[in-house]
Protein backbone atom coordinates (compact mmCIF):
# COMPACT_ATOMS: atom_id res chain seq x y z
CA UNK A 1 0.00 0.00 0.00
CA UNK A 2 2.92 2.33 0.65
CA UNK A 3 4.40 1.73 -2.79
CA UNK A 4 2.13 4.28 -4.50
CA UNK A 5 3.21 7.37 -2.51
CA UNK A 6 6.81 6.16 -2.65
CA UNK A 7 6.75 5.94 -6.43
CA UNK A 8 5.06 9.34 -6.64
CA UNK A 9 7.83 10.80 -4.49
CA UNK A 10 10.54 9.28 -6.64
CA UNK A 11 8.93 10.62 -9.79
CA UNK A 12 8.65 14.01 -8.17
CA UNK A 13 12.30 14.01 -7.16
CA UNK A 14 13.29 13.08 -10.69
CA UNK A 15 11.15 15.80 -12.23
CA UNK A 16 12.21 18.51 -9.79
CA UNK A 17 15.84 17.79 -10.58
CA UNK A 18 15.01 18.57 -14.17
CA UNK A 19 13.23 21.73 -13.03
CA UNK A 20 16.43 23.05 -11.53
CA UNK A 21 18.32 22.48 -14.75
CA UNK A 22 15.72 24.45 -16.64
CA UNK A 23 15.99 27.24 -14.07
CA UNK A 24 19.65 27.57 -14.89
CA UNK A 25 19.15 27.57 -18.62
CA UNK A 26 16.37 30.05 -18.07
CA UNK A 27 18.66 32.56 -16.39
CA UNK A 28 21.24 32.17 -19.11
CA UNK A 29 18.61 33.06 -21.65
CA UNK A 30 17.59 36.16 -19.78
CA UNK A 31 20.93 37.78 -20.69
CA UNK A 32 19.17 38.47 -23.96
CA UNK A 33 16.77 41.36 -24.67
CA UNK A 34 14.23 40.48 -21.99
CA UNK A 35 16.80 41.20 -19.30
CA UNK A 36 16.36 44.37 -17.31
CA UNK A 37 13.91 42.71 -14.98
CA UNK A 38 15.63 41.89 -11.73
CA UNK A 39 13.86 38.73 -10.52
CA UNK A 40 11.74 37.48 -13.37
CA UNK A 41 9.01 35.00 -12.50
CA UNK A 42 7.86 34.92 -16.10
CA UNK A 43 10.10 35.05 -19.15
CA UNK A 44 8.78 34.85 -22.68
CA UNK A 45 11.19 34.89 -25.60
CA UNK A 46 10.07 35.01 -29.24
CA UNK A 47 6.75 33.31 -28.60
CA UNK A 48 4.95 32.26 -31.75
CA UNK A 49 1.54 30.60 -32.02
CA UNK A 50 -0.66 30.04 -35.05
CA UNK A 51 -4.03 28.35 -35.40
CA UNK A 52 -3.91 26.87 -38.87
CA UNK A 53 -3.17 29.75 -41.21
CA UNK A 54 -4.08 32.40 -38.64
CA UNK A 55 -1.09 33.72 -36.76
CA UNK A 56 -2.32 34.67 -33.29
CA UNK A 57 1.01 35.51 -31.67
CA UNK A 58 4.11 36.44 -33.61
CA UNK A 59 7.40 37.02 -31.84
CA UNK A 60 6.25 38.14 -28.39
CA UNK A 61 8.93 38.64 -25.72
CA UNK A 62 8.64 40.05 -22.23
CA UNK A 63 9.60 39.38 -18.65
CA UNK A 64 7.61 39.92 -15.47
CA UNK A 65 9.29 40.68 -12.17
CA UNK A 66 8.27 39.15 -8.89
CA UNK A 67 5.56 41.16 -7.13
CA UNK A 68 4.70 43.20 -10.18
CA UNK A 69 1.31 43.94 -11.70
CA UNK A 70 2.09 43.41 -15.35
CA UNK A 71 -0.50 44.48 -17.91
CA UNK A 72 -0.97 42.87 -21.29
CA UNK A 73 -2.88 45.40 -23.34
CA UNK A 74 -4.26 45.38 -26.79
CA UNK A 75 -7.37 45.56 -28.91
CA UNK A 76 -9.66 42.55 -29.23
CA UNK A 77 -8.05 39.76 -31.20
CA UNK A 78 -4.53 41.10 -30.69
CA UNK A 79 -3.24 37.82 -29.24
CA UNK A 80 -3.41 38.69 -25.55
CA UNK A 81 -5.41 35.67 -24.49
CA UNK A 82 -3.31 33.26 -26.54
CA UNK A 83 -0.19 34.69 -24.92
CA UNK A 84 -1.43 34.12 -21.38
CA UNK A 85 -2.81 30.70 -22.32
CA UNK A 86 0.75 29.74 -23.23
CA UNK A 87 1.83 30.99 -19.79
CA UNK A 88 -0.74 28.87 -17.99
CA UNK A 89 0.09 25.79 -20.05
CA UNK A 90 -3.29 25.68 -21.77
CA UNK A 91 -1.68 26.15 -25.18
CA UNK A 92 1.48 24.75 -26.67
CA UNK A 93 3.61 27.44 -28.36
CA UNK A 94 4.74 26.71 -31.90
CA UNK A 95 8.09 28.41 -31.32
CA UNK A 96 9.83 30.38 -28.64
CA UNK A 97 10.60 29.88 -24.99
CA UNK A 98 8.22 30.31 -22.08
CA UNK A 99 9.48 30.06 -18.52
CA UNK A 100 7.09 30.51 -15.63
CA UNK A 101 8.57 30.22 -12.13
CA UNK A 102 11.65 28.89 -13.91
CA UNK A 103 9.93 25.97 -15.61
CA UNK A 104 8.45 25.21 -19.00
CA UNK A 105 4.66 25.21 -18.55
CA UNK A 106 4.34 22.31 -20.99
CA UNK A 107 6.96 20.09 -19.39
CA UNK A 108 6.10 20.79 -15.77
CA UNK A 109 2.38 21.25 -15.87
CA UNK A 110 1.91 20.22 -12.27
CA UNK A 111 4.13 23.10 -11.11
CA UNK A 112 2.15 25.62 -13.13
CA UNK A 113 -1.21 24.26 -12.05
CA UNK A 114 -0.22 24.30 -8.41
CA UNK A 115 1.36 27.75 -8.35
CA UNK A 116 -0.38 29.77 -11.03
CA UNK A 117 -3.95 30.86 -10.36
CA UNK A 118 -6.01 31.58 -13.44
CA UNK A 119 -9.14 33.53 -14.04
CA UNK A 120 -10.53 32.81 -17.48
CA UNK A 121 -12.25 35.26 -19.74
CA UNK A 122 -16.02 34.68 -19.83
CA UNK A 123 -16.14 31.53 -17.78
CA UNK A 124 -19.08 30.57 -15.68
CA UNK A 125 -19.73 28.05 -12.97
CA UNK A 126 -22.65 25.77 -12.26
CA UNK A 127 -25.61 27.85 -11.19
CA UNK A 128 -26.92 25.57 -8.48
CA UNK A 129 -23.71 25.39 -6.50
CA UNK A 130 -23.28 27.62 -3.48
CA UNK A 131 -20.40 30.06 -3.09
CA UNK A 132 -19.04 28.19 -0.08
CA UNK A 133 -19.24 24.84 -1.87
CA UNK A 134 -17.32 26.15 -4.87
CA UNK A 135 -14.60 27.66 -2.72
CA UNK A 136 -14.25 24.44 -0.69
CA UNK A 137 -14.18 22.38 -3.87
CA UNK A 138 -11.39 24.42 -5.41
CA UNK A 139 -9.50 24.47 -2.13
CA UNK A 140 -9.46 20.65 -2.21
CA UNK A 141 -7.59 20.73 -5.54
CA UNK A 142 -4.45 22.27 -4.05
CA UNK A 143 -1.81 20.96 -1.72
CA UNK A 144 -1.67 24.07 0.46
CA UNK A 145 -4.82 26.10 -0.09
CA UNK A 146 -5.41 29.55 1.30
CA UNK A 147 -7.74 30.03 4.24
CA UNK A 148 -11.14 30.04 2.53
CA UNK A 149 -12.78 32.10 5.26
CA UNK A 150 -10.15 34.80 5.13
CA UNK A 151 -10.28 34.89 1.34
CA UNK A 152 -14.05 35.25 1.31
CA UNK A 153 -13.70 38.07 3.83
CA UNK A 154 -11.11 39.77 1.67
CA UNK A 155 -13.38 39.54 -1.35
CA UNK A 156 -16.43 40.62 0.62
CA UNK A 157 -18.28 37.38 -0.10
CA UNK A 158 -18.71 36.07 3.42
CA UNK A 159 -22.37 37.03 3.53
CA UNK A 160 -22.87 35.21 0.20
CA UNK A 161 -21.39 31.88 1.33
CA UNK A 162 -24.73 30.12 1.23
CA UNK A 163 -25.99 31.70 -1.99
CA UNK A 164 -26.27 29.90 -5.30
CA UNK A 165 -23.78 31.01 -7.94
CA UNK A 166 -26.59 31.93 -10.32
CA UNK A 167 -28.10 34.37 -7.82
CA UNK A 168 -24.91 36.46 -7.61
CA UNK A 169 -24.56 39.83 -9.31
CA UNK A 170 -21.96 40.35 -12.04
CA UNK A 171 -19.52 41.93 -9.61
CA UNK A 172 -19.99 39.16 -7.06
CA UNK A 173 -19.43 36.49 -9.71
CA UNK A 174 -16.27 38.27 -10.76
CA UNK A 175 -15.07 38.46 -7.16
CA UNK A 176 -15.80 34.77 -6.74
CA UNK A 177 -13.77 33.92 -9.83
CA UNK A 178 -10.92 35.97 -8.37
CA UNK A 179 -11.31 34.06 -5.11
CA UNK A 180 -11.10 30.75 -6.98
CA UNK A 181 -7.98 31.96 -8.80
CA UNK A 182 -6.38 32.71 -5.41
CA UNK A 183 -7.62 29.78 -3.32
CA UNK A 184 -4.53 27.69 -4.12
CA UNK A 185 -2.21 30.34 -2.66
CA UNK A 186 -0.62 31.02 -6.05
CA UNK A 187 2.65 32.84 -6.63
CA UNK A 188 1.27 34.21 -9.89
CA UNK A 189 -2.31 35.12 -10.74
CA UNK A 190 -3.33 35.51 -14.37
CA UNK A 191 -6.49 37.55 -14.67
CA UNK A 192 -8.09 37.78 -18.12
CA UNK A 193 -10.60 40.57 -18.84
CA UNK A 194 -11.08 41.16 -15.18
CA UNK A 195 -13.66 43.94 -15.24
CA UNK A 196 -15.42 43.43 -18.56
CA UNK A 197 -19.14 43.79 -18.01
CA UNK A 198 -18.89 45.36 -14.57
CA UNK A 199 -20.46 48.67 -13.61
CA UNK A 200 -18.10 51.55 -12.70
CA UNK A 201 -18.55 51.02 -8.98
CA UNK A 202 -17.77 47.31 -9.17
CA UNK A 203 -14.76 48.01 -11.40
CA UNK A 204 -13.26 50.38 -8.86
CA UNK A 205 -13.84 47.89 -6.05
CA UNK A 206 -12.17 45.16 -8.10
CA UNK A 207 -9.17 47.39 -8.78
CA UNK A 208 -8.74 48.04 -5.08
CA UNK A 209 -8.84 44.34 -4.52
CA UNK A 210 -6.12 43.60 -7.06
CA UNK A 211 -3.83 46.05 -5.29
CA UNK A 212 -4.52 44.32 -1.98
CA UNK A 213 -3.65 40.97 -3.52
CA UNK A 214 -0.41 42.29 -4.93
CA UNK A 215 0.46 43.66 -1.51
CA UNK A 216 0.21 40.08 -0.26
CA UNK A 217 3.10 39.15 -2.56
CA UNK A 218 1.27 37.70 -5.57
CA UNK A 219 2.63 38.59 -8.99
CA UNK A 220 -0.26 39.56 -11.22
CA UNK A 221 -0.58 39.34 -14.98
CA UNK A 222 -3.56 41.40 -16.02
CA UNK A 223 -5.03 41.06 -19.49
CA UNK A 224 -7.17 43.99 -20.46
CA UNK A 225 -8.28 46.23 -23.26
CA UNK A 226 -9.19 49.02 -20.85
CA UNK A 227 -6.50 51.70 -20.78
CA UNK A 228 -7.80 53.33 -17.60
CA UNK A 229 -7.56 49.99 -15.81
CA UNK A 230 -3.96 49.50 -16.90
CA UNK A 231 -3.08 53.10 -16.01
CA UNK A 232 -4.49 52.69 -12.55
CA UNK A 233 -3.14 49.24 -11.69
CA UNK A 234 -0.13 48.22 -13.71
CA UNK A 235 3.51 48.76 -12.85
CA UNK A 236 4.40 47.97 -16.43
CA UNK A 237 2.45 47.17 -19.54
CA UNK A 238 3.17 45.42 -22.80
CA UNK A 239 1.12 46.72 -25.70
CA UNK A 240 0.24 43.89 -28.02
CA UNK A 241 -1.22 44.43 -31.44
CA UNK A 242 -1.65 41.99 -34.30
CA UNK A 243 0.32 39.34 -32.44
CA UNK A 244 3.38 41.40 -31.54
CA UNK A 245 4.60 43.53 -28.64
CA UNK A 246 4.72 47.08 -29.98
CA UNK A 247 5.83 48.81 -26.78
CA UNK A 248 6.63 48.01 -23.19
CA UNK A 249 7.06 50.46 -20.31
CA UNK A 250 5.31 51.86 -17.26
CA UNK A 251 1.91 53.32 -18.18
CA UNK A 252 3.16 56.82 -17.33
CA UNK A 253 6.37 56.34 -19.29
CA UNK A 254 4.46 55.14 -22.32
CA UNK A 255 2.01 57.99 -22.11
CA UNK A 256 4.80 60.55 -21.88
CA UNK A 257 7.02 59.00 -24.50
CA UNK A 258 4.46 57.89 -27.05
CA UNK A 259 1.30 59.78 -26.18
CA UNK A 260 2.09 62.88 -28.23
CA UNK A 261 2.97 65.06 -25.24
CA UNK A 262 0.92 67.32 -23.03
CA UNK A 263 -1.33 70.21 -23.92
CA UNK A 264 -1.72 73.47 -22.07
CA UNK A 265 -4.45 76.03 -22.73
CA UNK A 266 -4.63 79.55 -21.31
CA UNK A 267 -5.75 83.12 -21.89
CA UNK A 268 -2.73 85.48 -21.91
CA UNK A 269 -3.23 88.81 -20.11
CA UNK A 270 -1.98 90.53 -23.30
CA UNK A 271 -0.99 89.41 -26.84
CA UNK A 272 2.64 88.34 -27.33
CA UNK A 273 5.00 87.04 -29.97
CA UNK A 274 4.71 83.25 -30.45
CA UNK A 275 8.49 82.98 -30.51
CA UNK A 276 8.52 83.67 -26.76
CA UNK A 277 7.16 80.17 -26.23
CA UNK A 278 8.11 78.26 -29.39
CA UNK A 279 11.76 78.96 -28.52
CA UNK A 280 11.39 76.86 -25.38
CA UNK A 281 12.77 73.30 -25.65
CA UNK A 282 9.66 71.91 -23.95
CA UNK A 283 7.29 73.39 -26.54
CA UNK A 284 6.63 71.56 -29.81
CA UNK A 285 3.80 73.63 -31.22
CA UNK A 286 1.55 76.58 -30.53
CA UNK A 287 -1.95 77.31 -31.78
CA UNK A 288 -4.36 80.22 -31.42
CA UNK A 289 -7.99 79.43 -30.70
CA UNK A 290 -9.53 82.90 -30.66
CA UNK A 291 -8.08 84.62 -27.60
CA UNK A 292 -6.87 81.34 -26.26
CA UNK A 293 -3.42 79.85 -26.74
CA UNK A 294 -2.88 76.07 -26.98
CA UNK A 295 0.67 74.90 -26.42
CA UNK A 296 1.72 71.32 -27.05
CA UNK A 297 4.93 69.82 -25.75
CA UNK A 298 6.64 67.43 -23.43
CA UNK A 299 8.37 67.44 -20.07
CA UNK A 300 7.63 70.12 -17.51
CA UNK A 301 5.57 72.15 -19.94
CA UNK A 302 3.54 74.05 -17.35
CA UNK A 303 6.43 75.53 -15.42
CA UNK A 304 8.45 76.34 -18.52
CA UNK A 305 5.57 78.25 -20.10
CA UNK A 306 4.48 80.06 -16.94
CA UNK A 307 8.01 81.25 -16.14
CA UNK A 308 8.65 82.35 -19.74
CA UNK A 309 5.41 84.34 -19.65
CA UNK A 310 6.23 85.77 -16.23
CA UNK A 311 9.61 87.00 -17.42
CA UNK A 312 7.75 88.98 -20.10
CA UNK A 313 5.27 90.22 -17.51
CA UNK A 314 2.41 88.25 -19.01
CA UNK A 315 -0.09 86.50 -16.81
CA UNK A 316 -1.73 83.22 -17.87
CA UNK A 317 -5.39 82.96 -16.93
CA UNK A 318 -7.78 79.98 -16.96
CA UNK A 319 -4.91 77.54 -17.30
CA UNK A 320 -5.87 74.00 -18.29
CA UNK A 321 -3.35 71.21 -18.56
CA UNK A 322 -4.07 67.97 -20.36
CA UNK A 323 -1.60 65.13 -19.97
CA UNK A 324 -1.17 62.51 -22.62
CA UNK A 325 -2.78 59.26 -21.53
CA UNK A 326 -1.91 55.67 -22.12
CA UNK A 327 -4.82 55.63 -24.52
CA UNK A 328 -3.22 58.40 -26.60
CA UNK A 329 -0.02 56.39 -26.66
CA UNK A 330 -1.88 53.27 -27.66
CA UNK A 331 -3.80 54.93 -30.46
CA UNK A 332 -0.64 56.55 -31.81
CA UNK A 333 1.36 53.36 -31.60
CA UNK A 334 -1.22 51.15 -33.23
CA UNK A 335 -1.94 53.59 -36.05
CA UNK A 336 1.80 54.07 -36.61
CA UNK A 337 2.17 50.37 -36.82
CA UNK A 338 -0.53 49.90 -39.41
CA UNK A 339 1.25 52.42 -41.67
CA UNK A 340 4.54 50.66 -41.24
CA UNK A 341 3.62 47.01 -41.01
CA UNK A 342 7.08 45.99 -39.84
CA UNK A 343 6.45 47.78 -36.58
CA UNK A 344 9.89 49.14 -35.74
CA UNK A 345 8.73 49.80 -32.18
CA UNK A 346 8.50 46.10 -31.68
CA UNK A 347 10.97 44.27 -29.53
Amino acid sequence: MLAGPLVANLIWMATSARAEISVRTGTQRSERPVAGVAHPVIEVVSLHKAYGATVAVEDVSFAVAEGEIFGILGPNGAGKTTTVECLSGLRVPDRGTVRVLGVDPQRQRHVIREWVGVQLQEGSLRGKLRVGELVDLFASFYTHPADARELLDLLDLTSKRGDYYKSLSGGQKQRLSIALALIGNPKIAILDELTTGLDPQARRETWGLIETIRDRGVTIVLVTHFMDEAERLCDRVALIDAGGVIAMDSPLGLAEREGGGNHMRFHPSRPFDDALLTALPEVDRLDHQGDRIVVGGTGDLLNAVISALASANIEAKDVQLESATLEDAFVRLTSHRSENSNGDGRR
Partner: protein
Amino acid sequence: MSVGAATIPGRPRRLALRKLTVLELKLAWREPVGLILGVAVPIMLLLIFGLSSSFQKRIVAGNPITWRTELAPVLIGLVLVLIALISLPIPIVSQRENRFLRRLSTTPVSPSWLLAAQVAVNLLLALVAIVMIVVGDSVFFGVDAPQQVAGFILSVLLATMSLFALGLVVAAVARSARAAGAMGSVLLYPLLFFAGLWQPRQRMTPLMLHISDLTPLGAAVHAMLNSMQGSFPTLGSLAVMAGWTAIAGFAAVKLFRWE
Protein backbone atom coordinates in the same frame (compact mmCIF):
# COMPACT_ATOMS: atom_id res chain seq x y z
CA MET B 1 12.85 30.75 -8.70
CA SER B 2 12.08 28.45 -5.85
CA VAL B 3 9.46 26.37 -7.46
CA GLY B 4 6.94 24.40 -5.51
CA ALA B 5 9.50 22.80 -3.24
CA ALA B 6 6.74 21.73 -0.89
CA THR B 7 4.56 20.18 -3.56
CA ILE B 8 4.31 16.49 -4.18
CA PRO B 9 2.79 16.39 -7.63
CA GLY B 10 0.60 13.54 -8.65
CA ARG B 11 -0.45 12.94 -5.07
CA PRO B 12 -3.84 11.34 -5.51
CA ARG B 13 -6.23 14.00 -4.41
CA ARG B 14 -8.96 11.69 -3.26
CA LEU B 15 -10.48 14.55 -1.31
CA ALA B 16 -11.00 16.47 -4.55
CA LEU B 17 -12.59 13.51 -6.33
CA ARG B 18 -14.84 12.90 -3.34
CA LYS B 19 -15.87 16.56 -3.21
CA LEU B 20 -16.58 16.60 -6.95
CA THR B 21 -18.78 13.53 -6.62
CA VAL B 22 -20.63 14.83 -3.59
CA LEU B 23 -21.33 18.11 -5.37
CA GLU B 24 -22.56 16.24 -8.45
CA LEU B 25 -24.90 14.29 -6.16
CA LYS B 26 -26.17 17.53 -4.66
CA LEU B 27 -26.69 18.90 -8.15
CA ALA B 28 -28.58 15.74 -9.14
CA TRP B 29 -30.94 16.60 -6.28
CA ARG B 30 -31.09 20.36 -6.93
CA GLU B 31 -31.54 20.03 -10.70
CA PRO B 32 -33.46 16.76 -10.70
CA VAL B 33 -33.63 16.13 -14.45
CA GLY B 34 -32.09 12.68 -14.16
CA LEU B 35 -34.03 11.93 -11.01
CA ILE B 36 -37.39 12.78 -12.57
CA LEU B 37 -36.78 11.45 -16.09
CA GLY B 38 -34.69 8.45 -15.24
CA VAL B 39 -36.14 7.32 -11.92
CA ALA B 40 -39.59 8.81 -11.29
CA VAL B 41 -41.04 8.40 -14.78
CA PRO B 42 -40.18 4.70 -15.25
CA ILE B 43 -41.44 3.87 -11.77
CA MET B 44 -44.68 5.71 -12.43
CA LEU B 45 -45.06 3.74 -15.66
CA LEU B 46 -44.42 0.53 -13.75
CA LEU B 47 -47.23 1.42 -11.33
CA ILE B 48 -49.65 2.39 -14.07
CA PHE B 49 -49.03 -0.62 -16.29
CA GLY B 50 -48.54 -2.97 -13.37
CA LEU B 51 -51.97 -2.17 -11.97
CA SER B 52 -53.73 -2.55 -15.28
CA SER B 53 -55.28 -5.98 -15.60
CA SER B 54 -54.94 -6.14 -19.36
CA PHE B 55 -51.22 -6.59 -18.79
CA GLN B 56 -51.91 -10.10 -17.48
CA LYS B 57 -52.72 -11.22 -21.01
CA ARG B 58 -50.28 -12.99 -23.21
CA ILE B 59 -48.76 -10.92 -25.95
CA VAL B 60 -49.00 -13.72 -28.49
CA ALA B 61 -51.33 -16.66 -28.05
CA GLY B 62 -49.44 -19.79 -27.13
CA ASN B 63 -46.34 -17.88 -25.95
CA PRO B 64 -46.00 -17.74 -22.14
CA ILE B 65 -44.73 -14.14 -22.19
CA THR B 66 -47.35 -11.71 -20.87
CA TRP B 67 -47.31 -7.96 -21.34
CA ARG B 68 -46.27 -7.62 -17.72
CA THR B 69 -43.29 -9.97 -18.10
CA GLU B 70 -41.89 -7.81 -20.82
CA LEU B 71 -42.63 -4.60 -18.95
CA ALA B 72 -39.63 -4.73 -16.59
CA PRO B 73 -36.92 -5.17 -19.26
CA VAL B 74 -38.45 -2.43 -21.40
CA LEU B 75 -38.70 -0.07 -18.43
CA ILE B 76 -35.12 -0.83 -17.45
CA GLY B 77 -34.19 0.04 -21.02
CA LEU B 78 -36.13 3.28 -20.68
CA VAL B 79 -34.29 4.14 -17.46
CA LEU B 80 -30.93 3.50 -19.06
CA VAL B 81 -31.71 5.46 -22.21
CA LEU B 82 -33.05 8.49 -20.36
CA ILE B 83 -30.18 8.58 -17.91
CA ALA B 84 -27.44 7.80 -20.42
CA LEU B 85 -28.62 10.00 -23.26
CA ILE B 86 -30.20 12.96 -21.41
CA SER B 87 -29.09 13.16 -17.81
CA LEU B 88 -25.44 12.24 -18.45
CA PRO B 89 -24.36 14.26 -21.52
CA ILE B 90 -26.19 17.56 -21.00
CA PRO B 91 -24.32 18.68 -17.85
CA ILE B 92 -21.01 17.60 -19.37
CA VAL B 93 -21.64 19.62 -22.52
CA SER B 94 -22.89 22.65 -20.62
CA GLN B 95 -19.77 22.60 -18.47
CA ARG B 96 -17.63 22.54 -21.56
CA GLU B 97 -19.77 25.30 -23.04
CA ASN B 98 -19.35 27.59 -20.05
CA ARG B 99 -15.64 26.78 -19.98
CA PHE B 100 -15.71 25.04 -16.62
CA LEU B 101 -13.77 22.04 -17.98
CA ARG B 102 -11.12 24.46 -19.21
CA ARG B 103 -11.10 26.21 -15.84
CA LEU B 104 -10.50 22.84 -14.18
CA SER B 105 -7.56 22.11 -16.47
CA THR B 106 -5.76 25.15 -15.02
CA THR B 107 -5.91 23.51 -11.57
CA PRO B 108 -4.03 20.47 -10.33
CA VAL B 109 -7.06 18.24 -10.97
CA SER B 110 -7.92 17.00 -14.41
CA PRO B 111 -11.31 17.82 -15.97
CA SER B 112 -11.66 14.08 -16.57
CA TRP B 113 -12.35 13.78 -12.85
CA LEU B 114 -15.50 15.76 -13.34
CA LEU B 115 -16.57 13.33 -16.05
CA ALA B 116 -15.85 10.45 -13.72
CA ALA B 117 -17.99 12.07 -11.01
CA GLN B 118 -20.78 12.65 -13.51
CA VAL B 119 -20.70 9.03 -14.70
CA ALA B 120 -20.65 7.79 -11.10
CA VAL B 121 -23.69 9.83 -10.09
CA ASN B 122 -25.69 8.73 -13.13
CA LEU B 123 -24.73 5.10 -12.55
CA LEU B 124 -26.07 5.48 -9.05
CA LEU B 125 -29.35 6.92 -10.36
CA ALA B 126 -29.67 4.04 -12.84
CA LEU B 127 -28.94 1.49 -10.14
CA VAL B 128 -31.60 2.94 -7.83
CA ALA B 129 -34.19 2.93 -10.61
CA ILE B 130 -33.38 -0.61 -11.78
CA VAL B 131 -33.47 -2.04 -8.27
CA MET B 132 -36.80 -0.33 -7.63
CA ILE B 133 -38.25 -1.72 -10.87
CA VAL B 134 -37.07 -5.30 -10.27
CA VAL B 135 -38.05 -5.33 -6.61
CA GLY B 136 -41.33 -3.50 -7.18
CA ASP B 137 -42.23 -5.84 -10.01
CA SER B 138 -41.75 -8.98 -7.97
CA VAL B 139 -43.03 -7.69 -4.62
CA PHE B 140 -46.13 -5.83 -5.75
CA PHE B 141 -47.10 -7.45 -9.02
CA GLY B 142 -45.98 -11.01 -8.45
CA VAL B 143 -43.74 -11.15 -11.49
CA ASP B 144 -41.01 -13.69 -10.82
CA ALA B 145 -37.64 -12.24 -9.99
CA PRO B 146 -35.05 -13.04 -12.68
CA GLN B 147 -34.35 -16.77 -12.69
CA GLN B 148 -30.90 -16.52 -14.17
CA VAL B 149 -29.44 -13.91 -11.78
CA ALA B 150 -25.90 -13.88 -13.18
CA GLY B 151 -27.18 -13.58 -16.73
CA PHE B 152 -29.54 -10.79 -15.73
CA ILE B 153 -26.84 -8.78 -13.96
CA LEU B 154 -24.48 -9.29 -16.89
CA SER B 155 -27.18 -8.11 -19.30
CA VAL B 156 -27.94 -5.00 -17.26
CA LEU B 157 -24.23 -4.27 -16.90
CA LEU B 158 -23.52 -4.54 -20.61
CA ALA B 159 -26.65 -2.56 -21.46
CA THR B 160 -25.53 0.19 -19.07
CA MET B 161 -22.04 0.25 -20.50
CA SER B 162 -23.16 0.41 -24.13
CA LEU B 163 -25.71 3.15 -23.49
CA PHE B 164 -23.40 5.22 -21.29
CA ALA B 165 -20.79 4.96 -24.02
CA LEU B 166 -23.38 6.22 -26.50
CA GLY B 167 -24.25 9.06 -24.11
CA LEU B 168 -20.58 10.00 -23.92
CA VAL B 169 -20.42 10.14 -27.72
CA VAL B 170 -23.25 12.68 -27.53
CA ALA B 171 -21.29 14.57 -24.86
CA ALA B 172 -18.22 14.44 -27.09
CA VAL B 173 -19.71 15.78 -30.29
CA ALA B 174 -22.51 18.14 -29.18
CA ARG B 175 -21.40 21.76 -29.28
CA SER B 176 -24.03 23.10 -26.91
CA ALA B 177 -26.26 21.74 -24.18
CA ARG B 178 -29.22 22.37 -26.45
CA ALA B 179 -27.64 20.35 -29.24
CA ALA B 180 -26.88 17.56 -26.77
CA GLY B 181 -30.53 17.50 -25.73
CA ALA B 182 -31.62 17.32 -29.36
CA MET B 183 -29.14 14.57 -30.23
CA GLY B 184 -30.13 12.60 -27.16
CA SER B 185 -33.81 12.77 -28.08
CA VAL B 186 -33.15 11.83 -31.70
CA LEU B 187 -31.30 8.70 -30.57
CA LEU B 188 -33.82 8.00 -27.83
CA TYR B 189 -36.88 7.22 -29.93
CA PRO B 190 -35.50 4.63 -32.37
CA LEU B 191 -33.70 2.93 -29.49
CA LEU B 192 -36.91 2.75 -27.46
CA PHE B 193 -38.91 1.70 -30.50
CA PHE B 194 -36.64 -1.26 -31.21
CA ALA B 195 -36.56 -2.07 -27.51
CA GLY B 196 -40.31 -2.67 -27.77
CA LEU B 197 -41.74 0.25 -25.83
CA TRP B 198 -44.54 0.62 -28.40
CA GLN B 199 -44.59 -2.84 -29.87
CA PRO B 200 -43.28 -5.77 -27.84
CA ARG B 201 -40.61 -7.92 -29.42
CA GLN B 202 -43.09 -10.80 -29.62
CA ARG B 203 -45.15 -8.80 -32.11
CA MET B 204 -42.30 -7.48 -34.21
CA THR B 205 -41.95 -8.62 -37.81
CA PRO B 206 -38.84 -10.73 -38.53
CA LEU B 207 -37.09 -7.75 -40.12
CA MET B 208 -37.87 -5.47 -37.15
CA LEU B 209 -36.75 -8.18 -34.77
CA HIS B 210 -33.51 -8.50 -36.69
CA ILE B 211 -32.85 -4.76 -36.44
CA SER B 212 -33.87 -4.81 -32.79
CA ASP B 213 -31.30 -7.50 -32.07
CA LEU B 214 -28.58 -5.29 -33.52
CA THR B 215 -29.44 -2.20 -31.44
CA PRO B 216 -27.93 -2.02 -27.96
CA LEU B 217 -31.30 -1.64 -26.28
CA GLY B 218 -33.06 -4.35 -28.32
CA ALA B 219 -30.24 -6.74 -27.50
CA ALA B 220 -30.48 -5.68 -23.86
CA VAL B 221 -34.22 -6.36 -23.65
CA HIS B 222 -33.71 -9.71 -25.38
CA ALA B 223 -30.96 -10.66 -22.95
CA MET B 224 -32.94 -9.54 -19.91
CA LEU B 225 -36.07 -11.40 -21.04
CA ASN B 226 -34.06 -14.58 -21.52
CA SER B 227 -32.49 -14.38 -18.09
CA MET B 228 -35.78 -13.52 -16.40
CA GLN B 229 -37.16 -16.75 -17.78
CA GLY B 230 -34.25 -18.76 -16.59
CA SER B 231 -32.03 -19.15 -19.64
CA PHE B 232 -28.66 -17.52 -20.04
CA PRO B 233 -28.69 -14.61 -22.53
CA THR B 234 -27.66 -15.56 -26.04
CA LEU B 235 -24.08 -14.93 -26.97
CA GLY B 236 -25.33 -12.81 -29.87
CA SER B 237 -27.16 -10.28 -27.71
CA LEU B 238 -24.22 -10.02 -25.32
CA ALA B 239 -21.83 -9.56 -28.24
CA VAL B 240 -23.99 -6.81 -29.74
CA MET B 241 -23.92 -4.86 -26.45
CA ALA B 242 -20.19 -5.42 -26.02
CA GLY B 243 -19.61 -4.28 -29.58
CA TRP B 244 -21.59 -1.08 -29.07
CA THR B 245 -19.67 -0.43 -25.87
CA ALA B 246 -16.34 -0.83 -27.64
CA ILE B 247 -17.23 1.22 -30.72
CA ALA B 248 -19.05 4.03 -28.90
CA GLY B 249 -16.47 4.08 -26.11
CA PHE B 250 -13.66 4.39 -28.62
CA ALA B 251 -15.50 7.11 -30.54
CA ALA B 252 -16.24 9.06 -27.35
CA VAL B 253 -12.60 9.02 -26.30
CA LYS B 254 -11.41 9.95 -29.79
CA LEU B 255 -13.92 12.73 -30.34
CA PHE B 256 -14.06 14.30 -26.89
CA ARG B 257 -12.98 17.93 -26.75
CA TRP B 258 -12.19 19.69 -23.50
CA GLU B 259 -13.02 23.15 -24.86
